[in-house]
């Protein structure tokens, strides 16, 4: 009996420490997973920016580039469509305030990147459109960065 009581205190301390370590490690893993998802959104935006540059600055007036630029147009449209913005996972990752800002910017990006003469016979290089789209992309990245830093440093 005396032996058990001698070890009971340290045993409880070890168990409590293990539980705290487990909870904290799980929380850090959770934050790391959220961070990885946000990094994927960054990569999506990088891909979109590259395609937008090729499409909106490309020489559409030159027939030898038609196939490539047409392909880029379809890829851009598909990429924009596939970004999984509107899932509940995304909402929970970004939080309400940042999500509503991101949603508005996402629509503006879509309208700019695939508007105007996109996929029409009148399509021609348009640096102004490219500038607008790139600006929207960087605003989106800024919103993502805000979400990312907010995960670790609460104000």
């Amino acid at each position, binding site marked *: 009996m005396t032996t058990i009581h001698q070890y009971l205190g340290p045993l409880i301390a070890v168990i409590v420490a293990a539980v705290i370590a487990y909870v904290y490690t799980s929380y850090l893993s959770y934050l790391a997973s959220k961070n990885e998802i946000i990094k994927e959104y960054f990569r999506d935006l990088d891909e979109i920016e590259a395609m937008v540059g090729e499409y909106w600055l490309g020489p559409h007036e030159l027939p030898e580039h038609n196939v490539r630029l047409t392909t880029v147009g379809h890829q851009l449209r598909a990429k924009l469509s596939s970004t999984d913005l509107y899932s509940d996972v995304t909402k929970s990752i970004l939080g309400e305030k940042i999500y509503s800002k991101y949603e508005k910017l996402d629509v503006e990006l879509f309208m700019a990147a695939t508007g105007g003469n996109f*996929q029409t016979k009148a399509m021609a290089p348009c640096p102004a459109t490219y500038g607008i789209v790139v600006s929207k992309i960087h605003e989106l990245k800024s919103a993502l960065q805000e979400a990312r830093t907010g995960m670790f440093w609460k104000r």
Partner: protein
Amino acid sequence: MGEYIMIELAKFSKYPSGRDAGDGDFNGARFRDEVLVPAVKAAQAQNKKLKVSLSGVMSFGSSFLEEAFGGLVAHEAATKAFLQKNLVIEPGQPSYKRYEIAIWNYINKAG
């Protein structure tokens, strides 16, 4: 008044593209003139609302959406007030909400 005239955009095309006939067969002007305008007229005549489902369409370019839906107001086939009261856009899936928002942006800034 609770009934809808239903349009499934995917039946027009699963990959609509462009603004007019020179841009391809399944363009925005054709969808507007052959599908939307008759549906708007029917909705007005029968005092029904109009519901457009985006489900089943693979993706959109906003040039198509502007020509089709913004064009309803720009070409005076329907007023903004009528569409705001009687048009329902059904995205079909969460990620298509951006198309629904874009459609309303085009309708609201047209004319």
